[in-house]
C-alpha cells in the first residue's frame, strides 16, 4: 500500500514537472496557483450538467476553466491598466468565489466541498481502486497519473521545437509561421489538465509545489532546455519518494512532507550547488578576492620594500593579517 502511494506520487510529480518547466520559463508560476483554484468552478459547472462527480466531462470543464483563467488574466493585463500580478489577483478570487457560492447555494448536500478539492489526500490513494470484471488493477489514481504523464510527454516530444521557440522568442516564432498563441494555449491546456487530474490526488497546494519547485530547482543547475526538463522530472521523482519515506517514518501528512522535502531540495541547490549555489558563489568570490589582494600586497611590498608601507596602501587589513598568519610574510619592520 505504501508502495502504491510512492508510485502514484512519483508519477504525478513527474507529469507535473514537465509543464512546470514551461511555466517557470514563461515567468508564470503564480498562474498555476490561480488555475489550481479556479478549476473548481469548472468542476462545479460540470457537475451541474452531468449530476455525476466521476464524469469525465468534469475534467474537460475544469480544464476549460483553467484556460478561461489564463485568458481573462491576460486580457486584463493587456489593457495595460493593471499589472500582471494584479490581474491574477482579480481573476483568481472572482472565479474561485463564484465556485464557492455555487457550491453553498446549490450543492451543499453533495460531497463537493472545497476541502476535498483543495487539499486532496495522498494517503487515500490505495482505497479508490480500478476494478474491471472483478480483477483489481491497482489504484485509479495510478492510471490517471500515468495517462497524464503520457499526454504531457507526448505533447512535449511532438512539439518540443515549437514550445522552445515560442517561449524563447515569441516574435520570431510568429515570423517563422508557427502560431505562438496556439502553442501558448497548448502549454496552458497542459498545465490546466495536469492541475485538474492531479489535485484529486495531491491537492491544490501540492500541485503548485509540484509544478514550480522542481522547475526552479533545475533552472539553477541547467544550461539547456532539454536538460532542464529531464532534470526537473528527476528532481520531482526524488522529492516525492523522499517525501513519502519521511511521511511514513514520522507519520505525518504525505503532501506536507513532500512539499517540505521539495523546498529543502531547492534550498540545497540554491545554497550549495557547485555552479549556481549562493554559498558556493560567495565562498568562491571570497577566495578569488583573497588571492587577488595577496598578490596586490606582494606587489606593493616589492615596490615599497617593506611590509608596513604596503599595509598603508592596501586597504583590506583582514587579508594582511591572514598573510602574516599563514607565514607568507613576516610581520617585521
Amino acid at each position, binding site marked *: 500500500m505504501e508502495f502504491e502511494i510512492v508510485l502514484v506520487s512519483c508519477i504525478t510529480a513527474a507529469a507535473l514537472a514537465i509543464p512546470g518547466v514551461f511555466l517557470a*520559463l514563461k*515567468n508564470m508560476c503564480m498562474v498555476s496557483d490561480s488555475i489550481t483554484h479556479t478549476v473548481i468552478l469548472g468542476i462545479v459547472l460540470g457537475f451541474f450538467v452531468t449530476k455525476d462527480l466521476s464524469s469525465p466531462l468534469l475534467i474537460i470543464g475544469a480544464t476549460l476553466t483553467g484556460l478561461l483563467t489564463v485568458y481573462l488574466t491576460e486580457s486584463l493585463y493587456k489593457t495595460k491598466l493593471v499589472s500582471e500580478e494584479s490581474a491574477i489577483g482579480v481573476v483568481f478570487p472572482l472565479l474561485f468565489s463564484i465556485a464557492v457560492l455555487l457550491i453553498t447555494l446549490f450543492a451543499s448536500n453533495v460531497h463537493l466541498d472545497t476541502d476535498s478539492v483543495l487539499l486532496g489526500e495522498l494517503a487515500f490513494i490505495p482505497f479508490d481502486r480500478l476494478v474491471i470484471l472483478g480483477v483489481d488493477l491497482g489504484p485509479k489514481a495510478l492510471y490517471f497519473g500515468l495517462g497524464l504523464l503520457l499526454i504531457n510527454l507526448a505533447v512535449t516530444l*511532438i*512539439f*518540443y*521545437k*515549437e514550445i*522552445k*521557440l515560442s*517561449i*524563447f*522568442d*515569441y*516574435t*520570431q516564432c*510568429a*515570423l*517563422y*509561421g*508557427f502560431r505562438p498563441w496556439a502553442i501558448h494555449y497548448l502549454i496552458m491546456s497542459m498545465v490546466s489538465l495536469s492541475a485538474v487530474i492531479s489535485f484529486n490526488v495531491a491537492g491544490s497546494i501540492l500541485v503548485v509545489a509540484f509544478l514550480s519547485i522542481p522547475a526552479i530547482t533545475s*533552472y539553477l543547475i*541547467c*544550461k*539547456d*532546455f532539454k*536538460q*532542464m526538463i529531464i532534470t526537473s522530472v528527476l528532481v520531482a521523482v526524488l522529492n516525492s519518494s523522499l517525501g513519502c519515506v519521511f511521511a511514513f517514518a514520522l507519520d505525518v501528512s504525505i503532501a506536507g512532507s513532500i512539499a517540505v522535502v521539495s523546498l529543502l531540495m531547492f534550498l540545497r541547490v540554491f545554497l550549495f550547488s557547485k555552479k549556481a549555489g549562493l554559498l558556493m558563489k560567495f565562498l568562491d568570490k571570497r577566495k578569488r578576492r583573497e588571492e587577488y589582494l595577496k598578490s596586490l600586497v606582494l606587489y606593493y611590498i616589492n615596490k615599497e620594500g617593506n611590509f608596513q608601507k604596503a599595509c598603508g596602501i592596501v586597504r583590506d587589513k583582514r587579508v594582511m593579517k591572514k598573510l602574516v598568519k599563514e607565514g607568507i610574510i613576516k610581520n617585521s619592520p
Partner: protein
Amino acid sequence: MEKIAVEVKNLVVSYKEIPVLWDINLKIPKGCLFAIVGPNGAGKTTLLKAMLDLIKADAGFVNIDKTLKVSYVPQNSSVSWDFPATCFDVVLMGSYRSLGWIKRPGRKEKNNAAACLEKMGMLEFKDRQINELSGGQKQRVFLARALMEEGDIFFLDEPFRGVDVVTEKEIIRLLKSFKEEGKTAVLVHHDLSTLCEYFDYMALINKSLIAQGPCSEVLLSEKLTQAYNGKISPFGVGYANIASNVR
C-alpha cells in the same frame, strides 16, 4: 527599372488612435542596402514591424516579393534572456522555419549552425549561455541565426546599437556580401555620419515620409532639416561630417 523587393503603399499605423506612421509610400529595390532614418520617435521601428506584419496597419498595404524569404533581427530586448539556451541553440533555432512543424533539426542543420557561428566569429562561444554574452556578441549570435534562416531579405532593427566599431564594420562587411549575392537588407539606422558609407538607399521619415532615394541625394537636400526640425541641435557635429562624406 530595378526590381522592387518591398513596396509600401499608403501605410498608416496608430497607437491609441494617434497615427505614428502617416501615409507612407516606399519602394525598396532588390539587392541593395536600405536605411530607415529619422529622429527618435519618428516611427522607424514601427515601420519595420509594420512591414513584417508584426503590427497591424490601419490603412494601406505592404507588399514583400513573394519569392523572398524574410529574416528579422530585432532589437536586443525582444527575446527571453533567462531562457536556458546556448549560442548554438539560438542559431539552430534559425532552421526551424524551413523545417516546419514537428520535424527536428538533424546533422545537416547542426553543421550549418556551427558554420554560421564561425562566420560571425562566435564559434568559440558555442556553448556559452546567451545571457552571459556582451551586447556585441549577442548581436553577432542573432546575425548568425539570421544567416541560418537563409533569408533573401533581412530586416535589422538598429543592429549597431551598443556594438563596438570592429563588430559594426564586420556586420557591414557581412551585409555587403549579402548584397553581392543579390540579397536585400533593410536597417533602422541612427548614425547620420556613416549613412553614405554603408547604404545605397534611404528613407527619411518623421511620422510621414520626408524623402527617399539614394543616400547622397537625400542627405544633401533641405529635407534633412525638415525631418529633424524642432529638435534640439538637429545635426550637431554630424552635418559637417555628412557633407564631407558626400563630397
